[in-house]
């Protein structure tokens, strides 16, 4: 199966190893992975700060970048959701609205997509570790990460006390309300660390950045991985992209 990969801007420049793990896993599971050129931002930043015109302009670009019949797979719940929000930005009945609807129907979050592949959810992946899962509110209650990771042999998948509670990032929110944001990530880190995990895993890169940034400032040794990285490690015994696993 051929797919188009949508890489969040955060992954492109700050967490490229997540993108490489996504490619590794998808190729290993038999997908042809295309990575359309010219990707920048999905427009989420503009949309969430109330700049509808800016969001619309960026959406129009994405409609061009991701044109075609293939599924668009994205390793971020919030970016996938933004792409599915495009129809809201255009007048119903216009050609752009129709294109936005068509794209929205093709967008799939990484874990959900992997669960549709032949053999799912048990791909024979194996990793002996205790992994604390942060579900991320940005996945809108999807249980795909749980279902996917629960099938990894040897993995003890743990969920914190309030699994769906926000980690406090919220994009611009974390900069406009930094102390509130910090209080929330403090709560989240406490509840996750209480599980005594080896790994913290999530399917949302922005939450990972927020939580791992906090953990690293507070000197915690817990390793944070995207679900794709955990799967990559469990399928291949090593992490793709020059990142070492100790």
């Amino acid at each position, binding site marked *: 199966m051929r797919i188009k990969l949508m890489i969040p801007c955060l992954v492109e420049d700050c967490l490229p190893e997540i993108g490489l793990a996504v490619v590794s896993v998808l190729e290993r599971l038999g997908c042809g992975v295309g990575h359309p050129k010219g990707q920048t931002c999905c427009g989420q930043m503009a949309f969430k700060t109330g700049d509808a015109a800016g969001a619309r302009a960026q959406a129009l670009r994405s409609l061009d970048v991701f044109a075609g019949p293939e599924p668009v797979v994205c390793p971020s719940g919030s970016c996938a959701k933004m792409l599915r929000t495009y129809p809201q930005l255009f007048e119903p009945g216009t050609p752009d609205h129709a294109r936005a609807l068509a794209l929205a129907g093709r967008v799939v979050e990484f874990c959900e997509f992997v669960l549709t592949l032949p053999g799912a959810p048990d791909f024979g992946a194996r990793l002996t570790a205790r992994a604390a899962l942060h579900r991320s509110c940005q996945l809108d209650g999807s249980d795909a990460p749980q279902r996917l990771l629960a099938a990894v042999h040897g993995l003890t998948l743990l969920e914190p006390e309030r699994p769906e509670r926000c980690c406090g*990032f919220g994009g611009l929110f974390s900069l*406009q309300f930094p*102390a509130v944001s*910090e209080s929330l*990530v403090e709560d989240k880190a406490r509840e996750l660390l209480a599980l005594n995990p080896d790994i913290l895993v999530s399917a949302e890169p922005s939450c990972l950045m927020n939580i791992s*940034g*906090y953990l690293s400032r507070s000197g915690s040794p817990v390793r944070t991985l995207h679900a794709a990285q955990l799967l990559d490690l469990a399928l291949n015994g090593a992490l793709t992209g020059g990142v070492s696993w100790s």
Partner: protein
Amino acid sequence: MVLTSTFTPRNFREQSEKACHDATLRAVLDHATRYFMGKRGVALEAFADRDTHFARARAARLTALSRLPDLLEQLEQRATAAGTKVHWAHDAAQAREIVAGIARGCGAKVVVKGKSMVTEEIALNPALEADGIEVWETDLGEFIVQLAEEPPSHIIAPCIHKSRADVAALFREKLGLAGLSGQEDLEDSASIPELTLLARRALREKFLAADLGVTGVNIAVAETGSVILVENEGNIRMSTTCPPVHVAIMSLEKVAASLEDAADILRVLPRSATGQKMSSYVSVLTGPRRSGELDGARETHLVILDNGRSEILADAVLREALLCFRCGACLNSCPVYQTIGGHAYGSVYSGPIGTLLSSLLLPAKDTRDLPFGCTLCGACKKTCPLGIDHPKLMLRLRERVCAGSPGLASAAHTFLALHPLAYRLVMGAARAVDPHLNLLPRLPGLPSGLASFVDSRQPPELKKPFTAQLRNARKKRGGA
């Protein structure tokens, strides 16, 4: 809206940043919101055909909004026929004047009030007190915040921010009360039943002395002209039956077409609010005491308040906020509310629904920050039994604040996002100069909170981009 404290929505950001540093407040809020959510969870678990009942309640509310002018006219007609005097108030000032007029008319010296957010919205108490009237809040939580000279911090739990010890200290100071034994001073460790009994003693006197009772309205039934009041303490029923005159104040969206619609709402409201199948008291009041009846007010008034709501109704997206029947569950489920409490919002209504209502009811210039104090996590939407999509409305409000002119940083970002080459150049240059983003907090045009963010969280590092790494890897593989 006028507040008895110095909090204002204009300072929402500063107030919320300060509130989350108050460890005691956070602990009290954490305990209380978990308690509410826990009780609610148990009640909803046991609620057979829950989704059907939620849908019926939503339908009743949608009916009310879509037929509002007709229903309000019918309500006026039926209430008048039942002997209630109906008043229309365009805004808060007019509503205050109406109630003050009624108070003057009956020569009221003491007024008792049932818990009502709408009377907070119109700042009724100060207006009555300015006329020399003694005003007493009789809901226990409201009574506590009144003694503390604070506004309520939660729609249904006004003193949610206070601990038991806070209340004991407050009673000792303001009521000059000794403990129940009458011997020693009331101790901080006084039990809740003991504190409640002390408040009850103080309030009994007020009920008996009151010339006028003022309450809000949970549901007004157009079909019968009745006012429905939901409570657990019995103080609202006493406020409507002890004094000879009762004034009920409703915001105009609180109407329901029929008793059946009201029942659909009542099946959901207490469960969602306090996890009860039904509240301890539900009063259905239709007009004043009739001849031969033993209780009830001799004179009843209903004030129907607009205060900006007609304008909200005109907005196809934002009108959804008027579906709310004030169960308060979105406050309890909101991680931001759980952390900062209600006062930080600086207006009468707090939390997710409060952000929406305050932004719509108060001047735009005072509420610019409110819709941004939200991570868009959607816990409120998931919790709301009426299906209000708070995050969607929040985004709509942000659009109104932005009004087509995004800030410098935002505009620059959009420009770069639209020009991939420039985007790559800027990111490449940033990586060359400052890969660990040490200089980021000092860049002009970026939010001032960046420095504190970086203080508590290691910022990400700029690495060799994914696109280049993938290209290299594929080249290597192709060549191998």
